């Protein structure tokens, strides 16, 4: 079908009704209709995506243009932290301080759990939830505790949603959190380098760089990663004001997060919140490079194992039994 444009003011030959006014004829009328339909379509499209107009209220231009963590200068960081602090104030009504503790040179952190002592009380999960400013609605935490049947190390026989009282003689308990792998699959797969391993072994996420594709969540063999499916809700009085940029600051909606060995505490010489909260003394944390550390004592004197060793992820997280 070939349609030739009709020169203006000239009637198109054909069976068009001669009594109609000139402009309403031939292809010019059709073009008018087309134009109207396209305008209508565009208007409908504009209406359909109207909710997006609220984005500029939530994402400032500075945030949109913010560079990757590793490319930020000290003054950039200062400005960004100030912005994030004021945003937390407006959105959560809490006065917080965002710091950026760096790895201590020569330190390599590792964790160990004594499965003979852990009794599944779940205090570690509660402490994690509070310490790390997790979304309150779903009791989010970086730790999952498996209740395991005695006689098997197969997680298929585990249960993370137990609601029976503890301790319980027929079972044992195995908490799982980020294993801070030396060969982390989550870091390999990230398309934008939003997650990386720091010198002290901690795998961190730049929450302002992550695009939220969740490839790392698919790649992690330990279910250690969490996605912010919605904006976290935390009452103002419960917000932990001592925040690290790469650790427990309130995470933005639509980005990944994970256990960071409480780096805002541990890099300052304190212990992880989950360890401090554990009433059984099952948890051991320390510097692998320090020959006098507790973690070194455990590795030397206990027969430790790591989860899913066959995958070659090289965890910095060990498990052991007393006897």
């Amino acid at each position, binding site marked *: 079908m070939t349609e030739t444009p009709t020169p203006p003011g000239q009637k198109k030959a054909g069976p068009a009704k001669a009594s109609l006014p000139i402009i309403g004829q031939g292809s010019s009328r059709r073009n008018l209709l087309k134009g109207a339909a396209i305008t209508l379509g565009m208007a409908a499209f504009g209406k359909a*995506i109207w909710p997006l107009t609220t984005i500029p209220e939530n994402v400032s231009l500075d945030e949109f243009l913010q560079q990757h963590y590793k490319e930020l200068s000290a003054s950039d960081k200062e400005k960004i932290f100030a912005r994030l602090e004021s945003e937390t104030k407006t959105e959560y009504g809490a006065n917080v301080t965002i710091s950026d503790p760096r790895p201590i040179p020569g330190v390599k952190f590792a964790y160990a759990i004594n499965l003979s002592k852990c009794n599944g009380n779940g205090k570690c999960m509660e402490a994690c939830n509070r310490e790390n400013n997790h979304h309150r609605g779903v009791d989010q935490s970086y730790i999952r505790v498996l209740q395991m049947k005695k006689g098997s190390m197969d997680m298929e026989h585990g249960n993370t949603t137990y609601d029976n009282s503890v301790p319980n003689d027929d079972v044992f308990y195995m908490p799982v959190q980020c294993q801070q792998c030396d060969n982390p699959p989550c870091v390999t797969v990230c398309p934008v380098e939003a997650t990386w391993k720091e010198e002290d072994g901690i795998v961190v996420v730049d929450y302002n*760089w*992550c695009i939220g*594709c969740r490839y790392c969540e698919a790649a992690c063999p330990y279910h250690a990663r969490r996605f912010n499916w919605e904006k976290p809700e935390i009452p103002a009085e419960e917000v932990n004001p001592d925040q690290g940029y790469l650790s427990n600051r309130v995470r933005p909606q639509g*980005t990944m997060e994970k256990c960071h060995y409480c780096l805002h505490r541990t890099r300052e010489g304190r212990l992880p919140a989950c360890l401090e909260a554990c009433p059984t003394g099952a948890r051991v944390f320390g510097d692998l490079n320090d020959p006098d550390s507790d973690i070194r004592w455990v590795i030397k004197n206990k027969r430790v194992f790591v989860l899913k060793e066959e995958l070659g992820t090289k965890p910095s997280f060990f498990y052991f039994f007393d006897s």
Partner: protein
Amino acid sequence: MSTNIANLPSGAEPVDHVHSYPRFLWWSADQATSGGWKFLVWMFVLTCIALVGANAWANQVVHGMIITNMTDHVSWGLYIANFTFMVGVAAGGVMMVIPAYLYHDKKMHDVVIVGELLAISAIIMCLLFVTVDLGRPERFWHLIPGLGRFNWPMSMLTWDVIVLNGYLLLNLHICGYLLYMRYLGRQPNPTWYIPYVMLSIFWAISIHTVTAFLYCGLGGRTFWNSALLAPRFLASAFVSGPAFIILTLLALKKIAGTRISSQPIHLLVNIIRVTILVNLIMVVSEVFTAFYTGGAHAASAHYVFLGLHGHYGLVPWTWTAIIANVLAAVLVMTPWAHRSAPLLVATCLLAFVAAWIEKGMGLIVPGFIPSTLHEIVEYSPSLAEWKITAGIWAFGLMVYTVLLKVAIAVFTRTVAGPYEPV
């Protein structure tokens, strides 16, 4: 892309592309928006569905992906399922390109553009499916090499970004160039498109291989961690792609009244006869390995086929796919597949739906069930996910319709001259 064509074989005077190319675009836009009532109703309905999808997506961006039914356990769902499937459809178009260009099948040559236009539409859908799966779509620029931080070559996702966009550009160039030349009534210059066509053949294989590598490279996901994944992806792509092209050709013949020879359809049916069996053999091989070995490695397969510990969410999906697949395989083997158009339509629809389930709900979702800590959290898409998915399908079909319309208009244009008749 075509402003410097020397040595035109037709001997006509050089064309002023600065003027004729915009005219070609304008003419195409006119063709793409003109049509009978069937066309207008079709486009109107698709527009409505696409708008519903756009609105659902806008809400998802604002309220968060909480409006989907995905969880930290099943963290990819309907979007990535459709993405994976559409990569296959895009790659499947190559099954027309190979006979046309490598085997110089004249009849296929006439309609090969249908496959290439399908590839363009399918890739656009893929890119949209990935975009709607992002938690922070406004940060997409972090993925642009040079601007952001592109984790290449380590992340398979960066490979996918390269091959998908590359395949889109290749096909846009090939189709755009051929249609423009045809519009001008000129002989296309082989040096301007044959190398790209050859490249696109390898590229088509690469897009689905890389997409399979996204999944099979993950050691923590036993269901995906199989060397058979990429070959299986290709086999099923070479079922779903040709099946959709057959449906397109039959629809063009029947509804749009386009004159299309039956030989390309015959050839595509013959291709499906091989690929559908290859795919089934690989399914059997995977099922055998999973169930005969048993143990934790078979947990996902158990969940998919028989249900696991009282959870049966995917069992109906799986058996629908298996039955549709086997039925399509039987039907396509019979001689009637060549003779009866209604039977062929049914066969292609069955094969297409089977591949959609197999690559989507049957592959992406069970990768997460049971989870890496062997928890079973089931997944079925939310209304918002269905809306967004339907919206992208509708938009993809709009793109495909418009492209086909322009292509047919160019091919059936009576006036074959370098300039517009005035």
